[in-house]
């Protein structure tokens, strides 16, 4: 049978892939996609815990699913603003590589 731990391990692997993408890739668009992967890994563990904690009425704990709804909304807003920043940056510098943006580098 599938246990709660199986879902949590899948979520952990997905989060790690996202973290590795943010740290290893140099293209800003791929970094934004990796951020989405990390947010969705958190969503998966939230939904798994929601299903695990069955209340007195025999239904899953819907508080966690409301949180997932909030996370998805915030992620969508974050992607929109991030991509607008990317377009503004591309207009100014003609690059999406994080290695070429060194104005604030110490």
């Amino acid at each position, binding site marked *: 049978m599938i246990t709660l731990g199986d879902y949590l391990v899948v979520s952990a692997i997905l989060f*790690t892939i996202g973290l590795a993408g943010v740290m290893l890739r140099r293209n800003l*668009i791929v970094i934004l996609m990796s951020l989405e992967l990390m947010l969705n890994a958190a969503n998966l563990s939230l939904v798994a815990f929601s299903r695990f904690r069955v209340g007195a009425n025999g239904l899953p704990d819907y508080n966690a699913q409301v949180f997932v709804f909030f996370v998805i909304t*915030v*992620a969508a807003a974050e992607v929109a603003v991030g*991509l607008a920043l990317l377009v503004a940056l591309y207009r100014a510098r003609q690059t999406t590589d994080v290695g070429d943006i060194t104005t604030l580098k110490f």
Partner: protein
Amino acid sequence: MSPFLFWIFAVLTVVFGAAVVLNRNPVASALSLVVSFLGLSALFMSLDAFFVGIIQVLVYAGAVMVLFLFIIMLLDIHAEERRRINWLAAVGGLGVAVILLVQICVVIGHFRGARQTFPLLAGSTTDDVWNIGRLLFTNYNLPFQIIGVLVLVATIGVVLLSRREPR
């Protein structure tokens, strides 16, 4: 949900998630992300969270991915040319990620609930939209309205950011 289907969708999600990071071409990364999100949506539905699974498909595989592909097309980004890899940075980044994975797995291993199967449901979960909506408009009414303001601010911010500077 049979264990067979769980493993199919879990492997699909993880493999295409890895393809997002490993692909050199941004378009291939974006399309891998769509497949990964579809697998994730199937995992949500296997946990009886049908509403969350549906909005995952609608919002991510629909709206967000169109946004990504549109920006890739607009900026005309090609596959990155092979550049010399900074091995120190690559090994460091991969090392931090692997350490985090090992840490999370150790924590899951020490958590007793992780070895239990999911309890059976007594009620029907087909009306989970009603349940989530009721919570959203009663217990979480203030956060819901704050999220509305956030989306409004994001919309105005995007318009302002993408406006051309007047000469």
